[in-house]
């Protein structure tokens, strides 16, 4: 990748970050690695997660991507990243034309209130994203 293209992509990446409390370096690096050169665009991806979770230990998540899922046009992978957990990566789902529908669900752990990012990599190399801010509180009555 030549220097000019890298600068453009870095610039686009900066534009997509929230102005206050920008995502940390590791999240940016993880997104870049997954996107493999493509600039993530907002859209086509819907990250369903409660804005205020009942308990940060088990948070249901569903990611839906608008795609015909044909051999010519499908989702290859869906990544779920976070801002403030000790590990940025949470899951990477590998799909293909046999999937039929680009919808996946799982349950994640959130260490604290933070932004969660879902990215979808398409068969044409384009990458789409959806970012959601989630509030996590600590449970009051727990094991001693």
């Amino acid at each position, binding site marked *: 990748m030549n220097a000019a293209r890298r600068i453009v992509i870095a610039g686009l990446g900066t534009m997509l970050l929230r102005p206050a409390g920008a995502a940390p370096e590791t999240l940016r690096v993880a997104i870049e690695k997954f996107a493999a050169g493509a600039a993530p665009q907002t859209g086509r991806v819907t990250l369903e997660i409660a804005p205020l979770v*009942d308990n940060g230990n088990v948070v249901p998540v569903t990611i839906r991507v608008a795609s015909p899922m044909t051999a010519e046009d499908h989702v290859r992978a869906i990544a779920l990243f976070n801002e403030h957990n000790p590990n940025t990566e949470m899951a990477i789902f590998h799909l293909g034309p046999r999937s039929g529908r680009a919808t996946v669900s799982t349950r994640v752990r959130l260490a604290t209130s933070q932004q969660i990012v879902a990215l979808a990599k398409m068969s044409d190399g384009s990458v789409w994203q959806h970012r959601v801010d989630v509030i996590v509180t600590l449970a*009051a009555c*727990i094991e001693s």
Partner: protein
Amino acid sequence: MRFVPFVLVAVSLAAVADTRRSGFDDMSPATQAMQRDDEQNPALLWLKDGEQRFAADCARCHAPASMRGVAVRYPAFDNVLARPVTLAERINLCRTRQMKAAPLAPESAPLLALEMVVANASRGLPIAPPDDARLGPFRERGRELFFRRQGQLDFSCAQCHDQHPGGRLAGSPIPQGHPTGYPIYRLEWQDVGSLQRRLRNCMSGVRALPFDYGAPEFVALELYLMQRAAGMALETPAVRP
């Protein structure tokens, strides 16, 4: 004295409206879906285990269908011990008395799995504490414990769960605290646990030294809590935050 009839009428009218809520109603839609949908409920892993254990051990004497209606009337009085016993204790008493087998450790996965399969057989049934006069003194002890202040924070159960349900404690919603789905899958534990495990967490929450598993205080509290929840539907296996 002429005000007494008015007061009696007002009290009886108030008693008609049931304002009790299960902890289920205080959860977010996503967590409610986790409980409602068997395909999403993690407790099913323990339930499947319980079904296998029941078939291997208990089915010699008990048809699985005969477990319907059992869990909703526990704790119940045991004649030999001359005191109330919880469902978990009853399962162990069956093992030691009838099967001549070793009891299962309190809060162990096998015991929870069996408790879950028995309680699940009563899913949807109203909690029905037995009308047994011998339970009276123990239930009263439980009521005293419910209203007793304890711990460094000097709170009683009643202060949070009778006086402030619907409020929040450090960001978490305060439920009314009805045992409508035990054993539960608690998100905080990422594990299945009994009502006593949850009560131990409550006691830690007010910085009190929790009673041991199986303590008479816990049996008394369970008796009172089930009476307090009488008529509410059992949801086992419930999911709770």
